[in-house]
């Protein structure tokens, strides 16, 4: 099942569905959030940034955990596909981490009166961005693919320690950042007319990430398997 050829063919069949659903979902979540939800009674209209900020921040964390797990699997069991997955996840996670930080700063200005504070949530999230950038730079810096994969796997697994710090920073320390809006154990502290578009937006952003991740991974597979007969056949080599 983990054969690159099987994965390439299977993911090719899923791509249009994942992409189509992601597009519909992102448009629905954002248009609903921007145009059809009531304003927040404390924050007014600035809270509408939530439909962008929360999905990005959630993705930044989830993508990092997936990256570290993939890299770990590649490191321990020497599975090529897992390392390629980790490589493809880094730029996606970095971009959403940056988006979460920037939209958070933009939201902070009208709400807290400042673009940035060095509180636990914001600082640990900035460290996550540096971890992502470090992983990308490390891979670029090492020519040997196997050595690069091992170095990135170690760095990404060490960096995992930052994830619970980000997650629980709002509970452990007094932060300017508000607590979690949606908790698995307690449900959501949010009115349904705001919660539903937020959940749609989160789900759609995850689908979008899956979509662009699959495109990246498929390219990596073609590149790494270029000597095999199935890739050559696909490129039109006469046998």
């Amino acid at each position, binding site marked *: 099942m983990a054969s690159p050829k099987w994965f390439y063919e299977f993911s090719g069949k899923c791509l249009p569905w994942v992409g189509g659903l992601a597009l519909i979902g992102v448009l629905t979540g*954002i248009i609903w959030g921007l145009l059809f939800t009531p304003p927040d009674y404390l924050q007014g209209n600035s809270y509408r940034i939530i439909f*962008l900020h929360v999905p990005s921040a959630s993705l930044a964390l989830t993508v990092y955990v997936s990256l570290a797990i993939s890299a770990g699997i590649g490191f321990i069991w020497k599975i090529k596909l897992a390392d390629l997955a980790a490589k493809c996840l880094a730029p996606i996670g970095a971009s959403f981490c940056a988006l979460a930080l920037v939209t958070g700063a933009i939201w902070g200005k009208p709400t807290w009166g400042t673009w940035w504070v060095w509180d636990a949530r914001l600082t640990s999230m900035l460290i996550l961005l540096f971890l992502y950038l470090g992983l990308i730079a490390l891979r670029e810096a090492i020519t040997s693919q196997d050595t690069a994969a091992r170095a990135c796997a170690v760095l990404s697994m060490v960096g995992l320690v930052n994830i619970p710090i980000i997650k629980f920073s709002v509970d452990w320390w007094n932060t300017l950042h508000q607590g979690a809006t949606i908790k698995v154990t307690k449900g959501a502290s949010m009115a349904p007319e705001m919660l539903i578009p937020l959940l749609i937006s989160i789900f759609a952003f995850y689908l979008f990430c899956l979509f662009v991740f699959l495109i990246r991974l498929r*390219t990596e597979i073609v590149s790494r398997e270029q000597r095999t007969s199935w890739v*050559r056949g696909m490129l039109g080599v006469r046998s």
Partner: protein
Amino acid sequence: MYFEDLNSLISMGGHGPYVWGAYLLGFIVLGWNLVSPILHRKKTIAELRRQLRREGRL
């Protein structure tokens, strides 16, 4: 729709520049995430084809 007219949608009670600015950046990030892997894929495949052509296999 929550907003009464286009002006109130654009101004968002004074929060317009923040909200629209954030969404503009969001659009750029989503766009980059979509376009960059597609371009990379095209470039990779074109490069492999060129290489195969040089080797006389295509």
